[in-house]
C-alpha cells in the first residue's frame, strides 16, 4: 500500500471566507490540527478583497454563498484583476450544493477545487494535498483566467485518497463573467476605501 501523502502547512497564510462564524471556527480548528498556524477569517467578499489588497494570502477557502455576491463572483473578480498579486493563489470553494452544474460553475469561475459541506478533516486534507502535489497549469484567455479546467482527479500519486465518487467531468463552454470589468473594479476600489 502506498504511503499517505504529507503536506506542510506551517507558515502558510490561509484565508477562510464564510458568513458563519461557527463554521469558520470549525474550519480553523481543522486547519490547526493540520499544523496551520496563520489563519485569517472574514465574513464577506468586501473583507476578502480588503485582506487581499493588504497582504499576501497563500490559499483562500471561500463559501459559495459568501455575501453579498457569492463566492463564485468573488473568484472571478480575483482571477480577472490583472494587478492583483493574489491572482493565482489557490481558491477552494466550499459549498452545500454539490450538483454538477454548481461544480462546473465553480470551475469555470477559476476555482481550483470544490469542497462539499459538511466538511470533514479528511476531505479538506485531501483537497489541500491535491492542490499542493498535483500542480495545474494556468490558462489565460479573453473569457477565462484560472487553473486549467481540463483535469481529472486521479487521487494522489499511486492512487491514495481517491474516492469512488470522484469522476471526470466534461469541459463546459465558458458561460461568461457574472460581473463586468467595471463591477470588478468597483468592488476592489470599495474594498480599498473600506466600504461595505
Amino acid at each position, binding site marked *: 500500500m502506498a504511503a499517505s501523502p*504529507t503536506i506542510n502547512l506551517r507558515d502558510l497564510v490561509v484565508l477562510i471566507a464564510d458568513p458563519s462564524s*461557527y463554521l469558520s*471556527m470549525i474550519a480553523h480548528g481543522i486547519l490547526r*490540527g493540520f499544523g496551520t498556524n496563520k489563519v485569517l477569517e472574514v465574513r464577506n467578499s468586501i473583507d476578502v478583497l480588503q485582506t487581499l489588497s493588504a497582504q499576501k494570502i497563500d490559499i483562500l477557502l471561500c463559501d459559495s454563498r459568501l455575501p453579498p455576491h457569492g463566492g463564485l463572483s468573488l473568484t472571478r473578480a480575483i482571477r480577472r484583476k490583472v494587478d492583483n498579486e493574489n491572482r493565482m493563489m489557490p481558491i477552494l470553494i466550499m459549498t452545500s450544493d454539490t450538483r454538477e452544474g454548481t461544480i462546473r460553475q465553480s470551475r469555470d469561475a477559476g476555482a481550483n477545487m470544490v469542497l462539499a459541506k*459538511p466538511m470533514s478533516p479528511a476531505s479538506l486534507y*485531501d483537497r489541500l494535498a491535491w492542490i499542493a502535489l498535483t500542480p495545474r*497549469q*494556468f490558462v489565460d484567455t479573453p473569457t477565462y483566467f484560472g487553473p486549467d479546467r481540463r483535469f481529472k482527479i486521479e487521487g494522489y500519486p499511486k492512487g491514495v485518497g481517491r474516492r469512488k465518487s470522484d469522476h471526470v467531468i466534461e469541459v463546459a463552454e465558458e458561460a461568461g463573467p457574472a460581473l463586468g470589468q467595471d463591477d470588478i473594479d468597483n468592488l476592489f476600489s470599495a474594498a480599498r476605501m473600506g466600504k461595505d
Partner: protein
Amino acid sequence: MSDTDKPEARIFTVETRFQKLARRAGGIPRDQAIEQAMAQIEEARPGFDDWVGKELDKLADVIKTARPGMPTSDWIDLAGSHSRQVRDVGTTMGFELLTYVADSLCEILDAVAAGAELNMDSITCHLDALYLARQRPYCNMKPDQVPELTSGLRRVVEHVSTSPHEA
C-alpha cells in the same frame, strides 16, 4: 472548437507559494493530521449546543415572518441559510438525527424556492423536530433509532416536493 480557433489562449506553468511551502519536509502525515483535526473538533463540541440553540431561534424568527402567498424571496434564503448551517455543522460534529431533520427541512425549502406550494405546517413540524433533536436523549440518536419521526418527515417532504404552486 479546435485549438487553432483559439490562438489567443496562453497556457503557462505556475508554482504558487502554497505549493512550494506545502511540499516542504516536516509536514504532518495525513492520518496524524486528521486525528489532530478531530481533536480540535471535539474541543469545539461544548459550544455546539449553545450555537445550535441560537440558530434554531433565528430560524424560528424567520419562519414566523413567512405566510402563504407572500414572496418567498423575502425569507426563504435566510431560512435556507440557517437550515444549511445546522445541517453542515451537525454533520461535522456527529449529531446525526439533528442533521437528518435539518437536511429534510433544506429539501422542503429548496422545493418551495423552486416553485412547490408553501405549506407552513410542513415547515413548523420540521422546526419542532429540530428542537426535539437538539435535546437529550435525542441529540445522541441516529435517524434509524426514531423510525416514526423520520418516516413522518419523509412523507412530508415527498408531499411538498410533488405539490406545484398554483398561482
